[in-house]
């Protein structure tokens, strides 16, 4: 039983540390990337990998209790609404005329003139 507790401790440590790593990487990308679309790509790292790994680590730490059920509910909700919100932001930005600056001809959409890049 002690061996099993040690095993669960190791698994939850690995999950939580890797989740923290992906979260910091996503936030670093949101800070440093040059374009709105690149920042969207970086934010999806935080929304998917960081959330899933951290919540899985907390589930392993909690064991078979009500807390695990609540954590799974929060995880499923974030797993559904995170991509939905990201898609809504991307769709609104694309509708308002914001275009990628570097790959302007590759997206299939008409590239914006360089002056109207900032849609505010």
């Amino acid at each position: 039983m002690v061996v099993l507790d040690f095993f669960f401790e190791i698994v939850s440590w690995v999950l939580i540390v890797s989740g923290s790593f992906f979260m910091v990487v996503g936030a670093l990308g949101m800070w440093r990337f040059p374009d709105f679309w690149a920042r969207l790509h970086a934010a999806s790292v935080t929304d998917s990998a960081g959330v899933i790994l951290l919540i899985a680590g907390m589930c392993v730490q909690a064991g078979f209790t009500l807390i695990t059920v609540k954590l799974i509910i929060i995880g499923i909700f974030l797993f559904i609404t995170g991509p939905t919100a990201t898609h809504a932001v991307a769709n609104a930005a694309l509708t308002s005329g914001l275009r990628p600056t570097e790959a302007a001809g590759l997206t299939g959409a008409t590239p914006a003139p360089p002056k109207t890049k900032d849609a505010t």
Partner: protein
Amino acid sequence: MFVVATIAVFVSMILVLVRLFSGPTMYDRVLAVNTFGTLTVLLIGVLGFLNERPDFLDIAFLYALINFVGTIAILKFFRYRAIGDTPRRDPDAEVE
């Protein structure tokens, strides 16, 4: 181990806040607010485990709900300039 996760969430929140206050377009700010809300949900859960009282998860779930609805409401306001029903043109009033 939850100390590591708490520090990581705090560092991520600070970086996202930098983007939120310096984003060139308003969609950068909306994206930063959405990510900040997700990080807040995780911070509430991790802090509950850090204090060995994980009863805050209901508050975290409520915050996730409000965060999603708030993001969609802000985007709808950007697009239609109205939060409620979009004003629809009456076809009878257009005959004249």
